[in-house]
C-alpha cells in the first residue's frame, strides 16, 4: 500500500488549510445573504485568533478558547453593525476600518504572546474508526472543529432554504424595502446575520492559531479573510460551493508549501504568490459573466437601508 500513502498527509494538511476558510466563508455568506457586505473578515479572524490563543495559553481550556474567539468575532461584528446598520455608515469603508482596527488590536493583545508555543487541539477518534486504512484518519480522525465546520455548512444550508427564518433573511437581502413594508425588522435581522458572520470568522481565526500553526504571530491570517470574500463570489452565494472553494484554495496553499519543501526549483516567493494569483483568476472567471452574478447575488448587498419612510 505504499504507492499512494503519501496522499494521506497531503489531504490532512489540505483539510487544516481549508477549514478556516470554510468557517469565514460560511459566516460571511449568511451576512451577505441578508444584504450586508462586511469586508472586515480579516480583522475579525485576527481578533478571533489572538483571543483563542491567549485564552488557551492562560486557561488551558480549548473549548473556552473557541467560544471566546467566537464571542470576540461577534463583538467586532457588532461594532460593525452599529456603524452600518444603526448609524447608516458606508459598508465598504466601515469594513476596511474593521480590518485595520482588528489588525491593530490583535497585535496589541498578542504583544506578550508572540512566539510562545501552545499545544494544538487534539484530533478526535470518532467511533474508534480512525485506524481504518486510508480513509480512517481522514474521515474519523480530525479535530472537533473540522467536524464543526461541516455541521455549520450543512446547518446554514438547511437554515437558509428549509426554514421560514432563513426565507425571511434571504428576503431581507433581496429587497429590504419590501421586507420592511411587510413588517419585518430589517435591522434586527441584519444584526444577527452580521454577528453570526463575526462569530464564524472568529472561530476560523481560532483554528489558525490553535491548529494550523499553533502559535500567535501578527497578521497571521495573511489575506485569508480577503480570499474568503472571493470564495463567496466564486460559490455564487451557495453554501455547498463555499466548502468546495475553500478546499480548492486549501489545496493550492498546501501544494505550494509542499512544492517549496520538496525543493522545487522555483523561488519560494513565486510559489507563495499562488494562492493570491489564483484568487484573482477565480474572481475574473466568475465575474466575467455579469448576468450570473446579478442572478445570484443578493440584490441589496452593500446598499444602506434607510428605515425612514
Amino acid at each position, binding site marked *: 500500500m505504499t504507492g499512494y500513502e503519501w496522499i494521506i498527509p497531503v489531504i490532512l494538511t489540505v483539510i487544516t488549510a481549508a477549514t478556516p476558510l470554510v468557517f469565514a466563508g460560511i459566516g460571511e455568506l449568511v451576512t451577505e445573504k441578508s444584504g450586508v457586505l462586511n469586508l472586515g473578515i480579516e480583522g475579525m479572524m485576527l481578533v478571533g485568533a489572538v483571543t483563542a490563543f491567549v485564552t488557551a495559553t492562560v486557561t488551558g481550556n480549548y473549548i473556552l478558547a473557541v467560544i471566546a474567539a467566537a464571542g470576540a468575532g461577534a463583538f467586532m461584528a457588532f461594532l460593525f453593525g452599529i456603524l452600518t446598520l444603526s448609524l447608516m455608515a458606508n459598508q465598504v469603508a466601515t469594513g476596511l476600518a474593521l480590518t485595520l482596527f482588528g489588525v491593530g488590536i490583535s497585535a496589541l493583545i498578542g504583544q506578550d504572546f508572540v512566539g510562545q508555543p501552545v499545544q494544538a487541539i487534539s484530533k478526535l477518534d470518532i467511533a474508534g474508526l480512525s485506524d481504518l486504512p486510508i480513509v480512517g484518519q481522514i474521515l474519523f480522525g480530525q479535530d472537533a472543529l473540522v467536524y464543526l465546520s461541516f455541521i455549520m455548512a450543512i446547518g446554514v444550508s438547511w437554515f437558509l432554504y428549509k426554514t421560514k427564518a432563513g426565507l425571511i433573511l434571504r428576503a431581507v437581502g433581496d429587497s429590504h424595502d419590501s421586507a420592511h413594508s411587510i*413588517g419585518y425588522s430589517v435591522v434586527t435581522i441584519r444584526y444577527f446575520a452580521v454577528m453570526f458572520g463575526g462569530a464564524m470568522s472568529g472561530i476560523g481565526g481560532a483554528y489558525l492559531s490553535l491548529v494550523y500553526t499553533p502559535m500567535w504571530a501578527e497578521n497571521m491570517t495573511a489575506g485569508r479573510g480577503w480570499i474568503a470574500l472571493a470564495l463567496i463570489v466564486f460559490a455564487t452565494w451557495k453554501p455547498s460551493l463555499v466548502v468546495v472553494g475553500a478546499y480548492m484554495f486549501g489545496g493550492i496553499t498546501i501544494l505550494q508549501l509542499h512544492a517549496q519543501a520538496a525543493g522545487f526549483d522555483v523561488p519560494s516567493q513565486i510559489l507563495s504568490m499562488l494562492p493570491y494569483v489564483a484568487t484573482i483568476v477565480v474572481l475574473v472567471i466568475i465575474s466575467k459573466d455579469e448576468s450570473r452574478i446579478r442572478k445570484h447575488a443578493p440584490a441589496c448587498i452593500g446598499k444602506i437601508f434607510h428605515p425612514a419612510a
Partner: protein
Amino acid sequence: MSDTGSSTSAQQPRLELKGITKSYPGVLANDHIDLKILPGEIHALLGENGAGKSTLVKIIYGALKADSGTISWNGERIDISNPHAARKLGIGMIFQHFSLFEAMTVAENIALSMPGRQNMAKLSKRIVEISENYGLPLQPDRQVHTLSVGEKQRIEIVRCLLQSPKLLIMDEPTSVLTPQEAEKMFLTLRRLSEEGVSILYISHKLDEIKALCHKATIMRAGKYISECDPTIETAKSLAEMMIGTDLRAPKHNDTGERGSVRLKVHNLSLDSNDQFGVDLNLINFEVRSGEILGIAGVAGNGQVELLEVLSGEALSKKPEEILFENKPIGNLGPSLRRKQGIAFVPEDRLGHGSVPEMSLVDNAFLSAYDQKQLINNGFIDRKKTKQFAKEIVENFDVRTAGVSHAANSLSGGNLQKFIVGREMLQDPQLIIIAHPTWGVDAGAAAAIHQAIIDLAAKGAAILVVSQDLDELFAISNRMAVIAEGRLSVGRNVQELSIEEIGLLMGGTTGSASQKEFESVV
C-alpha cells in the same frame, strides 16, 4: 357594541378615522383627516400627488403612527401599531410600489407575508384555488422576476385575499394596468364588495372613481376637503375639489404645419442587457419638426430600452437604425448626440437627470456644458454656469432657495421644471422626454405641458414617452403604443380612442392589433 339607534345610517362603519394628524419636519402631511368606510363599501380616497393620501394610508396600515387623532374598527377604538397588527385585524394593503422579492417564487413571496410557518405544498394549492376563483390566475412556482407587472400585482392581491381581509386598501392600482386589465380587476373588486369586503381605493383617476366607487373622500394639501358621492358628482366638480383651482387645458397653437423629418427610427431591434428587461423588436417611427409624438405603454414594455438607445446611453446594432436629419447616429454616445442638437429628459429626475447631492449650478453644467460653452481653456467657467442655472430658474419658475442649493432640496415638481428647462434652453432640434409629469404637482405639470407645446410651436420635434394616457391625449399630435418591445403605427390623436389604445397596450396578441404592430419597412 351598542348601536346609536338613529335610523339614517344604521350601519356601523368598519373603519372610522377622526382628526388624524401627522407632521414631518417642514410639512404637515395630514391635518385632522376624517374618514368613514362602511362594510362592503368601495370608498375612494381622492387627491393629487402630495395631498397626503399615502401618509394617511400608511397610518391605517400600521406602518406609521399618527401624531394625534383616533382610529375605530367596527366601533371600537384601536391602536394599529404595526403591519402585523393591521393584518391581524383583517386589513390588507396593496401598494403602488410592490413589496415583492424578485429572486423568489410566487409561493415564497406569499409565505413571507403570512405569519408563522407554512406548509409550502398546501400553500401552493390554496394560491391556485383562490387566484383562479377570483379571476387572477397565478402559478406558485414561477420566479417573480419573470412575471409581467399586471401579474405581479395579482400576487399582491392574492396575498391579501388568502388572509380573508375585511378591508382591502389599494393604492393607485390601475397605474400599471391596461384599460382592459383594469376592467377585469373592477369585476374582482365588485365581487369582493358584494361579499362584504370594504375597499379603500386610492386614486386620482376621476373616470375610474365615478365608475367604481360608492363614496369618495377628497384630500388636498394635507387637508380634508369633503366626502361625496362620486356617482352624482361630475368629473369636473371632483377635479375642482381635488385641485382647488380652475382647470385649464393646455393651449395648443397647433397650426398643423409639419416640417421635415427630424428623427427616424428604422427597424430598430435590440436585446436588453438586463436579464429582467424587454428586447426591442423592429421599432419604426418618425418625428417631424413642430410635431409632438406620444408613446404610450404600461411600464415594463421596452420603454427603458428604447429611451436608452435614443439617448445614446445604449448603442444600436447598426448606426442607420437611428437617423437624425438623415444622418445615422445609432453609434454615437450621449455627448455626440447632444452636439447634433438632441436633448433628453430621463425618467428619474434624482440620480439620472440630476445628481441629487450636487447644486443646481453643477446640475446645469451636467448636460449643457458643451451646448452652452461652459468650458473655457480647459477650465470650468463657474460664472457662466451660474448664470445659466439662474436663467433656467427664472424662465421656468423653479421655486428654490437659490442655485447653490442641492438638487434634492427641491420638490419633485420644481426639480422636474429645472431639468426640463435645462434641456429646452439648449435650443434642441429634437427633445425626448420620459414621463414628464410623473409625481409632479398639478401646477408644475401644467407648466411643463405648456412648455412642451410652446417648444413644438417653435419648430422642435418632440417625443414624449409616458404611462399617463390623459397627459398624452392632452399634448400629443400623434400617438403610438409600445408593448412587449414592439411599437404600433403612429396615428393622429383625433382618430384614436382610449379603447383602441388600451387594446394596443395590452399586447400584440389579438387579430385587430396584430396589423398595427406589423413592421413598416
